[in-house]
């Protein structure tokens, strides 16, 4: 199976979960208020406005599910920024 980790700006979390839902992702975990640095500069979580805080969502799913979802995820990241990390993993 594959572990997919997505790091995006918090405001977009609902939209990302829509993508997950569309592709029938059966489970995921969310870590709020992470911070980071990337193509969009620094993202600090201790902000007055929530706009610049990041959120990390990960899901372990079947390879095929990820394959199906790949294009939508890529498009998502192009539109909204963020990063997606893929690795091998299994559920016990």
């Amino acid at each position, binding site marked *: 199976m594959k572990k997919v980790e997505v790091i995006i700006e918090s405001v977009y979390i609902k939209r990302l979960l829509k993508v997950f839902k569309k592709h029938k992702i059966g489970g995921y975990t969310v870590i709020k*208020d992470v911070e980071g640095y990337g193509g969009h500069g620094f993202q600090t979580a201790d*902000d*007055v406005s*929530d706009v*610049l805080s990041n959120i990390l969502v990960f899901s372990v799913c079947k390879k095929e599910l990820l394959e199906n979802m790949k294009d939508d995820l890529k498009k998502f990241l192009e539109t909204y920024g963020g990063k997606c990390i893929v690795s091998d993993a299994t559920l016990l």
Partner: protein
Amino acid sequence: MNIDIILQNMLNPPVLFFFLGMLAIFLKSDLTIPQPLPKLFSLYLLIAIGLHGGHELSQSGVSTYIFKALLIAVVMSMLVPVYSFFILRMKIDVYNAIAIAATFGSISAVTFITGITYLDTIGVAHGGFMVASMALMESPAIVIGLVFAALFAKSADAEDENTSIKEILREAFLNPSVFLLIGALAIGILTGDKGWHSMEPLFGTLFKGMLAFFLLDMGLVAARKIHELKKVGMFLIGFALVMPMVNASVAVAVAYFFGIEKGDAFLLALLSASASYIAVPAAMRLSVPEANPGIYLPLSLAVTFPFNISLGIPLYYYMITTFWG
């Protein structure tokens, strides 16, 4: 306009705490106020403003005068984003123009209450109903931004437009700030004197202290954003300094024309001059993801906000005194 009138505003603990926060960043102190503490302060301030305004409205009722003042507020909040947009388009792309116009069209609650603190300090009366004006001025700019996006920009979200429009209108009228403010306002109106009496110890008496706490954090955030201004360019920094004065002037003129009283006119000017840094940026991030929050947030937080609470407030008050005497 002399230095005294500026000092009277600056030598308030809340304003000084803002600059203390900025200083912490400039000196690279590690001072931070981690989430969700800033959230606690902003929830507190919104509830406090709402309850207090609601209580005052419950005492005063709604007169034609109040209605007039509310109307001016709404008109200003629709006017400002429109002319701002066309001014911005002369120099920058459509996405960022929309986002900045909406940001400056809406208001900053903390600027508003710093203004009220100022009026209280110098002993100038103002209507409690002005909280309602503030509430009314939050959302129109978001809707106008949305309309401009539909008219002038091809957004990446174009496909699932239906869901988006619903989501964005919700963002405009039901975003946490607007919702909580109006909700507390309604509770203040409904429960009147008795309600306010039970809420006052927390939401009235402690207000200035909590404002100081929140402004300390705002200072940290604003100063951290200042170094992002390099990438923003002189045109936009100029915009963020000059536009508040223009907006305030327009508001002063309109208020004078319609016979608004001194204190209320000042607050209308200040509201028009202020820019949003919570509700609108969040809405713009959702509706115009192409716009760069690294531009509109620093402009609002690191230029307009500090300007308004330090020099803007005495300046707009000075304008007022030249008209009203």
